[in-house]
């Protein structure tokens, strides 16, 4: 495994109390593999990613347990200085909002070039040349002319491609993309995902794709991990999961999206509201919304039951769910 997150716990101390954002997340990704992390807003997808990257807001955030093994080393045991060397060079992140993640007052050429100056000790001129190459590679038309432009002078799709250029600059082993196309139109989303997949193949990178879009997952992922209230409730190879979900939450999500290829009947709606992380329900966190919930669900936290060799579900009644 390239990256293995084991039983990670993260909490935030806020004025109103302790928000338990991540409550025992376990997932892994291999080189060349795409893991999709799917979940609704607030389910802990980004916080987990920030912990892996070592960019968590601390305080108020605090990692209260778990391990993050990257190429065999536990990143949580590294000094900040060593962590910084890993970041950018060995693992890189792409964010949803490129405009606020790029520096607005530095031209994109210098921002891209800086990666080579800082991490590879390159001179300014060589770094600039590499920046143009990268912009070419992510298909920015007229890269040579545009290398001195500032982020706001590019369209949303181009900015996201510049972020991708920045992420792949040092050929990292792992890329974490946090909702990289959520802010983009579908035709631009298709361009960006296409590019990301191509670069991943070329460099044989591990990719963690964070999203709430079941369509995007079906399109690109090898494996999928579904998060709810800071836990992975189901993890499976992507084909298996869409064919037969083994967790009622996953089933509910799949049933609640309308279809493009035919006009459906009334949509299934998961009842109730996403949980409040200050007061996560007892037992299975999904029980107040679950159509299959029974007494045991209110008291016993479901462990990740093994559904098959490469599949797990945190539902006491996964077998029933799987059988439909």
């Amino acid at each position: 495994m390239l990256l293995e997150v084991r039983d990670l716990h993260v909490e935030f101390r806020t004025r109103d109390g302790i928000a338990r954002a991540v409550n025992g997340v376990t997932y892994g990704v291999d080189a060349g593999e795409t893991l999709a992390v799917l979940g609704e807003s607030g389910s802990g997808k980004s916080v987990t990613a920030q912990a892996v990257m070592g960019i968590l807001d601390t305080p108020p955030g605090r990692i209260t347990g778990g391990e993050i093994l990257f190429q065999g080393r536990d990143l949580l045991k590294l000094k900040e200085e060593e962590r910084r060397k890993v970041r950018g060079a060995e693992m890189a992140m792409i964010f949803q909002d490129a405009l606020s993640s790029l520096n607005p007052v530095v031209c994109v050429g210098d921002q891209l070039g800086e990666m080579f100056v800082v991490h590879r000790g390159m001179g300014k001129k060589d770094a600039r040349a590499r920046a143009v190459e990268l912009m070419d590679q992510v298909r920015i038309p007229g890269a040579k002319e545009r290398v001195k432009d500032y982020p706001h002078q590019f369209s949303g799709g181009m900015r996201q491609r510049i972020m991708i250029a920045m992420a792949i600059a040092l050929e990292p082993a792992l890329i974490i993309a946090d909702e990289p196309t959520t802010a983009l139109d579908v035709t631009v989303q298709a361009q960006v995902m296409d590019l990301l997949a191509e670069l991943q193949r070329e460099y044989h990178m591990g990719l963690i794709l964070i999203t709430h879009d079941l369509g995007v997952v079906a399109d690109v992922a090898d494996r999928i991990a579904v998060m709810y209230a800071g836990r992975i409730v189901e993890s499976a190879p992507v084909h298996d999961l869409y064919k037969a979900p083994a967790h009622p939450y996953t089933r509910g999500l799949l049933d609640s999206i309308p279809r493009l290829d035919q006009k459906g009947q009334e949509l299934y709606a998961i009842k109730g509201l996403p949980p409040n992380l200050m007061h996560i329900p007892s037992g299975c966190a999904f029980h107040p919304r679950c159509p299959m919930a029974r007494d045991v669900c209110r008291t016993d936290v479901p462990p990740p039951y093994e559904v098959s060799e490469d599949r797990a579900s945190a539902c006491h009644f996964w077998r029933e769910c799987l059988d439909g």
Partner: protein
Amino acid sequence: MAELSKNDEQQDATPNVSEVEVVDAHSETEAVAAIEAPVERGEPILQVRNLQKHFPLTQGILFKRQIGAVKAVDGVSFDLHQGETLGIVGESGCGKSTVAKLLMNLERPTAGEIFYKGQDITKLSGRALKAVRRNIQMVFQDPYTSLNPRMTVGDIIGEPFDIHPEVAPKGDRRRKVQELLDVVGLNPEYINRYPHQFSGGQRQRIGIARGLALNPEIIICDEPVSALDVSVQAQVINLMEKLQDEFNLSYIFIAHDLSIVRHISDRVGVMYLGKMAEIGTDTQIYDHPTHPYTQALLSAVPVPDPDAREHRERIILTGDVPSPANPPSGCRFRTRCWKAQDKCAEEVPLLAVPERFQGSDTPAAHESACHFAEEKDVVHAA
């Protein structure tokens, strides 16, 4: 007294754009009476003709000079039938919200007409305009910013009654608001709470309750579920469908999620750069699109089926949408169209049933603004 509205050559032989029966009201009372008259189910209730909105581009601080115009909406025509949902889709900046604002009378059009029951609402004033305003309401995208944080839910939902007290007399308001809360599935006891005490989905229900307060006939929904999580989206969509049946509403439903639009719409219009590229029933547009832009748009939508990955054709468009201040000549899509030819740069394609399909009853026979319209199924896996 039927009369074809002026400056619109696109109307001939177009099943989706009907003849406008212009009502010549000779007094305000007559105008109001026409507005209050019921429209039969399936008949046109709103007829939009050649609508344009150009925002001036200015330069200079003290002495503003106009140096051009953003052609946000540039000649859009369509009908909305009583009781139906017309979906409008298109990429960011294509003019969807501007159309919504024009229909709401929140912006003045640069040109064109909006007939509501035969009267051009862009020319109304006084009591007649007020009556139209009561009958056309809007639900906005962002449930976080569209509600005033300092007002209670009761005040927010009841606010429209200040302007239209005839709908709910003072003493009756509280009961009416509680009824509305109940209708949208919120606890009527929440009447004194503030917006921040609600989740996104609940706030959107508050917005819908407010939209319903005046018993409107038309509700214009601008991205009403885009900010919501998948599980909550379905709740709100189901609610909107239920309310439509219950109150006999007509919807204009603007969204960028093409699957949701198909689910809720009877007919769908596809916009590109201020113009309507194609319009038709949901089956015509999704299963038999003839405009290259619609085809590209649909093919780019990721579908939640991993098996479709290898079997669906993807049309990846190159380049970005051009600026609406300086749209391409001829067909606006030509800079990104893989079928473009010389004619496309020279002649603006009109929104009409393509000649080759005219008189035929294939689902491809619907309005499409392309010189070389041809059918292509991009949604269903081969």
